[in-house]
């Protein structure tokens, strides 16, 4: 194919009429896409709050151990059942002090340190399981929406997984995979992979359904046909044209997914299948503290609030991101 020279524009403007007839130019100067995203994002107060809190809590659980270098597993029986420092405000007699600002548990383990370490695990489990579920859900959704032949089977597969009971599944997984995983990743790493795997593998179905529905609708849009007509391969159509357009339902699933993953992990702790017992997670701290919640309400409230705030901020962040990532909304 030879390159044909395109002649320069022949139209020279007659100023008076051209203003009347030419297309209006957008008033705003062009800006970088990410600047735009950021500007839109910044306008969403909830998202800013959510993002800031999430950043804070992520940094806190990552760098917290340096700032507060107490070992969360360290027992100190003599100093058990300390109250958080603020109880001194109304009860001068309370066992509390700066040594353990959030108090200690019934074996004298420092609650602040446990919260930090527990947060690490919970956040990691939450994020990883959510990402895994998202990846699977999106993949299944996109594939079954896009390839008509696979649709039926993938959707029936989704039904299948939907009806699998999670608890026996986890027990099976533990039996089958714990030994090799433990050998390769250590007892905690292995369990981490297992839990993330099981939660991720059993919570992608909703995402898949929603994404599929959206893809089915998008597929009928003309720009997909256009992409096909300019020779875009299916893989690329999915990546470049379909996926960016289903980002908002994916965002919503992601928010709910993170919350569900953190909560499922805690439910597993509650049912006694999960990390080694001396390995704190927010869910486990919460469920361990429930029997003593009358005397030591802080032990349920602290992890409870941590979970809620994290989930909440992820939700707001998701709302904001969805608005910011959609150029149509961003334009307004």
């Amino acid at each position, binding site marked *: 194919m030879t390159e044909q020279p395109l002649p320069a524009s022949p139209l020279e403007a007659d100023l008076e009429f051209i203003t009347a007839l030419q297309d209006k130019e957008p008033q705003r100067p062009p800006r970088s896409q990410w600047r735009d995203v950021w500007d839109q994002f910044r306008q969403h107060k909830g998202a800013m709050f959510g993002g800031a809190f999430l950043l804070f809590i992520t940094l806190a659980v990552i760098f917290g151990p340096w700032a507060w270098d107490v070992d969360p597993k360290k027992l100190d029986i003599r100093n058990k059942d300390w109250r958080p420092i603020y109880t001194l405000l109304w009860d001068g007699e309370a066992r509390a002090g700066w040594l353990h600002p959030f108090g200690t548990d019934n074996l004298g383990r420092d609650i602040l340190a446990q919260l930090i370490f527990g947060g690490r695990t919970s956040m990691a489990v939450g994020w990883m399981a959510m990402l895994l579920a998202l990846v699977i859900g999106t993949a299944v959704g996109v594939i079954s929406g896009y390839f008509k032949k696979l649709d039926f089977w993938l959707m029936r597969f989704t*039904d299948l997984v939907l009806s699998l009971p999670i608890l026996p599944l986890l*027990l099976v997984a533990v039996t089958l995979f714990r030994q090799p995983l433990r050998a390769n990743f250590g007892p905690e790493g292995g369990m981490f992979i297992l839990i993330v795997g099981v939660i991720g593998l059993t919570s992608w179905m909703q995402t898949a359904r929603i994404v599929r529905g959206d893809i089915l609708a998008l597929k009928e849009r003309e720009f997909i046909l256009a992409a096909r007509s300019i020779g875009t391969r299916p893989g690329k159509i999915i990546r470049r044209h379909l996926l960016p357009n289903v980002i908002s339902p994916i965002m919503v699933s992601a928010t709910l997914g993170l919350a569900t993953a953190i909560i499922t992990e805690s439910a597993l702790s509650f049912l006694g299948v999960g990390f080694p017992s001396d390995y704190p997670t927010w869910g486990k701290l919460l469920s361990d503290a429930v029997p003593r919640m*009358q005397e030591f309400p802080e032990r349920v409230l602290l992890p409870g609030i941590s979970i809620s705030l994290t989930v*909440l901020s992820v939700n707001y962040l998701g709302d904001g991101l969805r608005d910011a990532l959609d150029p149509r909304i961003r334009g307004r």
Partner: protein
Amino acid sequence: MLTFTIRRLLLSIPTLLFISLVIFLLLQLAPGDPMAQVPLTVPPEVKQKMREALGLGQPLHIQYWKWLVQFFWIEPQVFIDYLTNRSALLGWLPDTSFSEGQLRVISWQTRSPVMDIVMQRMPQTLWVVGLSYVVGILIAIPIGIYSAYRHYSLFDQAGTFVTMVGFSIPPFFTGPLLIVIFSVYLGWLPSIYDTTHVVRDWASFKVQFMQMIMPVMVLALQTTAQISRYMRGAMLDNLNQDYVRTARAKGLKESVVVMVHVLRNSMIPVVTVIALGMPAIFGGAIITENVFKVNGIGQLLLTALFANDIPMVMTLTFIFAILIVLFNLIADVLYGILDPRIRYD
């Protein structure tokens, strides 16, 4: 629509058979043993004998086939017998006795037919879990509507906040919390659900009401959170549609525009979401039932799981699978019925 439904129903049969096989194999693979609750003082050989008496030693395919026959052939016969012998509806038919002498699906734990126990558990499960679903929906829908109508208002923000908090707090925390407040400190509500309570008159209804408040509320919190999010989203989508402007141009009242025109359209996706949530009602709510001792299907599944009562777990999960497949279908059909634009086949 009818052929669509029939076609889907037919296709779901092999799907379900496959699901049952997967569940069966999964449970076989699962570690654990029905003898776990027998005290350690009972010697191993006795336990071995007990296992054999349960039919544990048989080859897998025989066990699976036996279950299939029992579930798909004998249990329906039992049901027919029940209908013709005892039910009010069909009791006038000559009594049948198809199932006499046939071995039904027997629970290892209780040595009684699984289906009988399931039927026994249904009322309290439906009362508590089902009612909580209804309550959750009844709360969620107005919240969703108003949040969308007053998008980004204070109410919307507060609604989002409360529902998300509700969604993020696990029931094993909210349950005991409510018990401590309302049962222990205030002494207003019972902490333990009485499954044998029968509502006969006003007073006994009050008792029933009191004992249901807490579990229903704990469960409804989760439903509310989810449904109100969907409702809000659907309303937002529809409020900007052209037909809303048309309705306004007719001079309709704002309430009619929103509550008739917009709501009807927004309910279409929400109703299907609600339908998809239905199987969970029959599946019970494991943790909440446990916390309040409601002893519905969820608690049944949990105890069966911990006791490794495979026939029970197998049957329950499979019933659950049937419901999921069925309600998936119902959701699709509902969608088609509610939305005149959708026509299957």
